[in-house]
Structures are given as structure tokens and as C-alpha cells.
């Protein structure tokens, strides 16, 4: 089997964790598996770099120096702990020093100019992954394994130049990755690739945005046609509900790509939807596993026809921190284009809309936005829409939540919505607004914030998610 394995920052946080990574690699090699490792930055390092950029922008060079020292110290300490061979250790310490020096040069130039472009920002952010990949590589090498670490760009991932959230050019990437990583694998070398970062066509460093390391793993997996992509996290996998809200929540064993993406949209998953795209196209299964509890089977995200549909609903999600905005006015009835106007204003102002509903009387439109953007949204709409004859009022309610039931099993099965709303009504929760996506993978609705936990638990119970198969 050929497997891409991605280790998140907490999964390589200390000596014990890294020894476990080495064990996992050994085990797979004994099992005649070929592995490609994708490594995130150590936990907290990316945040430290972001802090350093902030300090650079205000010209606070003392603070930058402190952060750099800590960066160096932390990585040195970890390297000394896990690299069990003098020669390899000396080499990696030297390598770490060089990386830190390079980082220092870039960040100081930012601090002189007091300006950071998206391009230099990506360059700075890339150091976290380079430092950690270098250590993991050395640790494996000291353990008599043949390894080589490469940056995502060196591995062959090419993206557009949308710095900060670059998208891969998949065909070039496929070809280059096949060549470069393929060659290493043929020579029996284990590739250790930095997650999160890539190159433009001109070899300028880019980053893949949120959950970027997962994305790197699936891009590599797709390019190499691997059998599986394994994402090591610090949770058991995808859950039937947030265990902090519903203590009876279970790990979902198998789930389809589209269900997982739907859950991600509702903030419930550990993986970003776009990270699933490359593997979904090629039906490569993704295994989400807990690096802190190897015995747990984790969740397998895979092609829909291999997934047991089970009951209609597979997971119940909740988005907190949203606001319900209602645009109303009797004059809106029969006036064409009000909704279009509202949504074009919102998109011009980069307001992301999570849910929409329009009353059939047309006298109002309601929609959900993140709570943090609600003041700004209301203000923008007031300036643009009030004062004419159509829109009379724009109000926002900040004490609401979105609850969503997700599952491919509800497709084409009548009565699921009725069950959802009966269950919620039975516990005395009032539903403020309803939406069902045309994909029919979810039914979502808005409730008062104080009712949200009750609603989640009612659905969890109604669809017997506390009893979903666990092995």
C-alpha cells in the first residue's frame, strides 16, 4: 500500500510523540507499505510567526529578536531530544540555524520597511513547517531510515499566486509530484514534505490557507494515486456531534466525501472542505486518526457507495456566533430586484452569508451572517437601502444559533424534515428560520442561542446517533 500520512502540530509536539511517529513509520515499512510524510509546524509556531510579523510592522525589533530566540531554542531542544545520533544531530542543528538566520533576514527587512506583502507573509509563514520537517527527517535518519525532506514546492506542488490561500494547478502538480516524489519512493527513500506551503510557477513560496497541511496531504495523495491518506489529529475522528455539547456523541466510522464537506461547512469537522476535493475526485479514502489514541479506528472518509447510509441523519452540527439579519418593508412586495440588491451589496462588502430565507409574502428577507460581521453588515445595508420606498427596516438579532442535521441518507426519503422539526418542537424549542440545501445533504435551522444545546441533543436522540455502530 502507498499511504500519505499527515502529522499535525500537536502530533509532533514532543519527544514522545515523535518517537511514536517513528514507530508508525517502521511498522508500515515492515508491512511493505510505502509512506510519504506531510508535516505541520510545531504547535504554536505559526502563531508566533504571526505575532512576529505584527511586531515587525510596528518596528519592534527587540520583540522580534525575542521571538526568534525562542523559535531557535524550542527547535534545538526538540532536535536534541529526538535525534539519537551525534553526526545527524550536529547536521540538523546547523540546518536549523541556517533556517532561523534566513527567517531573521526576511523578518528584519519587513521591520525596516514596516510593510508586509501577502508574498513576504507567505515566505515568513513557511519557516514553521521547514523547521519541523527538518527535525522529523533527522529523527528518522538517526533511526537508520533513508529519508529526505523537501518543501511542498520542491516536492512539486505548484499553485496560482493567490498568496495566503493559493490553489494548486493540479495537472502540473500531478506531473511534477509523480516525478520527484515517485523517484524518491523508487529509490526506497521516505519523503518528508512540509505541509501548508507550495510554489508558484516561478518558485515563489505560497501557502495553502486554512487546514493547508491537510490540503498538501490530499494533493500529494491524488498526484501519487496512493491507496489512502491518513490524517493524524488529536481527536478520534469525525463525531456525530460536538462532544462538548452532547456527551453521548460517537465517532463516525465511515462517511462520504460530500457528507464530510457538508459537516465542515457547519463547522463540525476537523477537515476543511477544499482539502477533500483532490481525493474525492479520485476516490482515495482519507482516514482521520487520533495520534493520542492509536487503538481508535478513526473515521474513514470515502466514496458514497461504500458508505452505509444508516439512518437519515449522520451528524448534528451547530454554528454559534452567528446573527440573524432581517430586511423588511411592505414596499418590497412586488418590487423586483430587492433581494438581488441586498446580496450584491453583501458580496461587494465581502460579507459571507451562511443561510438565506425569504418569506413568501416577499415583505422580508432574512439571512445569517457571522456575529462578528453583523454590525458592519447592518450599517452597510442601512446606508444603501434605507431612505427609499422599499426597505423600511433592517434589524439584527445576535442571540441565535444555526443547528444542522447532516446525512446523505435523507436524500429522497420523505418525512426526515418532519422528524427533525417534531423532535425539536417536542423539547419546546422554537424554530426561527429554516433552510434545506438543494444537495439535500442537510436540513438547517435557526434557534435562540439558549435553545441550541437542547435542539442538538433532541436530534441526536431522535436519530439514535448515540447508538451508532462503534467497534
Amino acid at each position, binding site marked *: 500500500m502507498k499511504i500519505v500520512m499527515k502529522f499535525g502540530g500537536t502530533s509532533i509536539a514532543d519527544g514522545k510523540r515523535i518517537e511514536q511517529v517513528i514507530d508508525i513509520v517502521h511498522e508500515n515499512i515492515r508491512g511493505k507499505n510505502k509512506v510519504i510524510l506531510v508535516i505541520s509546524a510545531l504547535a504554536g509556531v505559526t502563531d508566533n510567526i504571526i505575532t512576529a510579523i505584527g511586531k515587525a510592522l510596528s518596528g519592534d525589533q527587540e520583540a522580534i529578536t525575542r521571538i526568534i530566540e525562542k523559535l531557535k531554542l524550542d527547535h534545538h531542544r526538540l532536535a536534541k531530544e529526538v535525534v539519537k545520533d551525534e553526526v545527524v544531530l550536529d547536521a540538523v542543528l546547523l540546518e536549523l540555524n541556517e533556517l532561523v538566520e534566513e527567517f531573521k533576514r526576511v523578518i528584519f527587512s519587513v521591520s525596516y520597511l514596516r510593510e508586509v506583502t501577502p508574498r513576504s507573509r507567505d515566505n515568513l509563514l513557511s519557516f514553521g513547517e521547514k523547521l519541523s520537517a527538518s527535525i522529523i527527517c533527522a529523527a528518522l535518519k538517526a533511526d537508520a531510515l533513508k529519508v529526505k525532506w523537501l518543501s511542498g514546492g520542491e516536492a512539486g506542488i505548484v499553485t496560482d499566486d493567490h498568496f495566503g490561500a493559493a490553489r494548486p494547478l493540479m495537472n502540473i502538480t500531478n506531473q511534477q509530484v509523480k516525478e520527484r516524489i515517485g523517484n524518491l519512493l523508487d529509490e526506497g527513500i521516505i519523503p518528508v514534505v512540509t505541509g501548508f506551503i507550495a510554489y508558484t510557477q516561478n518558485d515563489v513560496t505560497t501557502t495553502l490557507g486554512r487546514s493547508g497541511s491537510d490540503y498538501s496531504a490530499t494533493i500529494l495523495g491524488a498526484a501519487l494515486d496512493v491507496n489512502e491518506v491518513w490524517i493524524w489529529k488529536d481527536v478520534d475522528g469525525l463525531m456525530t456531534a460536538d462532544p462538548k455539547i452532547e456527551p453521548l456523541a460517537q465517532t463516525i466510522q465511515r462517511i462520504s466525501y460530500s457528507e464530510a464537506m457538508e459537516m465542515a461547512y457547519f463547522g463540525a469537522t476537523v477537515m476543511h472542505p477544499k482539502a477533500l476535493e483532490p481525493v474525492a475526485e479520485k476516490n482515495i479514502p482519507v482516514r482521520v486518526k487520533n495520534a493520542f489514541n492509536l487503538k481508535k479506528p478513526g473515521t474513514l472518509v470515502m466514496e458514497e457507495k461504500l458508505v452505509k447510509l444508516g439512518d437519515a441523519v449522520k451528524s448534528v452540527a451547530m454554528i454559534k456566533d452567528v446573527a440573524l439579519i432581517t430586511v423588511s418593508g411592505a414596499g418590497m412586495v412586488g418590487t423586483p430586484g430587492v433581494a438581488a440588491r441586498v446580496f450584491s451589496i453583501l458580496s461587494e462588502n465581502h460579507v459571507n452569508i451562511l443561510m438565506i430565507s425569504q418569506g413568501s409574502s416577499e415583505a422580508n428577507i432574512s439571512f445569517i451572517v457571522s456575529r462578528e460581521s453583523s*454590525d*458592519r453588515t447592518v*450599517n452597510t445595508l*442601512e*446606508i*444603501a*437601502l*434605507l*431612505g*427609499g420606498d422599499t426597505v423600511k427596516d433592517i434589524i439584527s438579532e445576535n442571540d441565535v444559533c444555526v443547528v444542522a442535521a447532516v446525512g446523505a441518507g435523507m436524500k429522497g426519503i420523505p418525512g426526515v424534515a418532519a422528524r427533525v422539526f417534531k423532535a425539536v418542537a417536542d423539547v419546546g424549542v422554537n424554530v426561527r428560520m429554516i433552510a434545506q440545501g438543494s444537495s439535500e445533504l442537510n436540513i438547517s435551522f435557526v434557534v435562540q442561542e439558549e435553545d441550541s444545546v437542547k435542539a442538538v441533543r433532541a436530534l441526536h436522540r431522535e436519530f439514535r446517533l448515540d447508538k451508532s455502530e462503534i467497534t
Partner: protein
Amino acid sequence: MRIIVLGFGNVAQPFVKILCEREKELSGNFGLKPRVVAVVDRGGAIVSSSGLNFTRILEAKKLGKSVAADTKLGRPRTTGMEIIEEVEADVVVEATPTNIVDGEPGLSFIKAALKKKRNVIATNKGPLAIALPSLMELARYNGVCLRFSGTVGGGTPLLDLGKKCLLGDKIQSIKGILNGTTNYILARMTEARVQMDDALKEAQAAGYAEADPTYDVKGIDSACKLVILANWLMDRRITIKDVNISGITEVTLNEIVKAEEEKAAIKLIASINGGEASVSPRLLPKNHPLCVGGTLNAVTFTTEFAGEITLVGHGAGGVQTAGAVLRDLIDIKRELSL
């Protein structure tokens, strides 16, 4: 609409009061939902992104405290510049004290706000007199409005009349009495035959003159207003340096009595025509339309088509100026919803 208010004195306080009192009307008639998100005075700032409630703030201000003294929302020592940088807003109202030497702090505030693409309403003449051509260019370049109705004529809509009611016509010259305090002083000298010092004391006692009347009596206040009129209405890119200024300090009671005998009066006249801009005491026949008494202002526009138009009205007090700020605010809201 989110508003930052810089300076919280005789103009800004009635302004926020009007916003509260007229809430329904502003929203119903103009679709205007004003939210004052920050106020700054010398002691610091008070900030709330969802809009401040003023009952408590006005009370505290009455007791002589800074707005920053508020325990929950106050930010002691935070400056106007910091607030302009940090607080998201649509409009900045600049109402700090006039300074004709370097325009500060208002000039920096207005520039920073325009660069940050905030619409600006100024009541403070200093920055405008010193740099109006640059400020107008900065506003245009950044695609925002710069309005200052409150700086000239107070409640009398001098700037709007010239700009909006004479569309297509051309103003060729402007001449008038732009300062109520000096007009009052000259009128008292004429009526009561008192010396200038006494007339000034009377004006101060009646609340028509500031404790420091220098800008008024030296003609500087009139010159500032003339600069604003010339830029706004005649596209003349001048600043206060381009105005020949002499105030009323040299005018004697004797001269006034003599004028009176000739059925004339001495008035502090600001004028600009094709050529020079000036402020100086001049002799006007008693029956001249500009020959108004008391604290009145009067301005004659000479236009290409309409000929002469004279507007007479009261100059500014805090409330009138606050009303002018509101006019500007409604105007900006209209611009923004286009």
C-alpha cells in the same frame, strides 16, 4: 451610519443631542440611522462599535469630566489619530478648536480621515483656511465627501445656496459681512457712541464674542470664511495667505460718527472678485443691502445670469452649527446611497 466625533464642545454636544431627539424622523424621512461609534476630547476617547448612548456621557461632560472617564467604554489618553486609525466608521465629524497658525490638531485629523476613506464633516475653519485646496483634492482622490456647511453662515445655508440653487450659473464675485461679533461691535459703536473696548465687553457679556476675540477683531475669522466660499463656490484655489486682511482694531469712534453723518456706515467687508481677496473695514451707504445691524451676517453673490443675490441671516452658535453638521450628514447619506 457610523460616526466618529472629534472634539466634544459647544458644537458636538448639541449635535449628538439632535441625533437622539430626531432618531425617528431621520430614519423615516431620510433613511438615516446614525450611530456615533467614538467621541474624542482632550482627555481621551470613548468607543462602542454598536453606537454610544449619550445620556451618561453628557452628564459626565457637564461635570467637567472627559468622555474617557467612562469606566466601561472610556479610553483615557487615546488620541483622535488613534481613533481614526482603529475605529471603523463612515463619517468623521471634526469639531476641535480653531487654530490658524498650523491648523492642528484638526488638520492632521482631517487628512488622516480622508486618507482612510472616511467622509469628513468639518466645523473647524482653521484647517480649511490653511489647506482647503489640498483637502478637497484629497477627498476627491479618495472618493469621499468633505463637507463644512457649519463653517460659514451657521444656520444660513450660504454654501448650499451657492452650490445647489445656482446650478449652471456662475458666481463672479462674493462680498459680505461674515463675522457677527465685529458687526455687533461696529453697530454698538454707531448706535450708542461707545468706544470699541466697551462695545467688545458688551459683546462678551452678551455671549456674542469669545473670551479671546483676536480672530474676530483682526478679521481672521472673516478671512477664513472667505477662503472657504471662494474655494467651494468659485473654484478659486486660495488659502488664507492669499487674503489681504485688516481687521477693525484701527477703526475709531470718530470715523464711525463721521460716516453716520454722511448716511453711511463702516462695516467689516470680506470680498473676492476676479482678482484679489480681501477683508477690510469699508464705508457702505445706509441703504445698501449689505448694511445690516446686530450680529447679522449678509452676503451678496454676483452671478452671470441671476445678477445680484443677497442673503441675510444669523451667524453661528453651537446649535446652528450642529444643525449644519446634520445637513451635511444627510447630504453624505444621499451621496452614499446613489
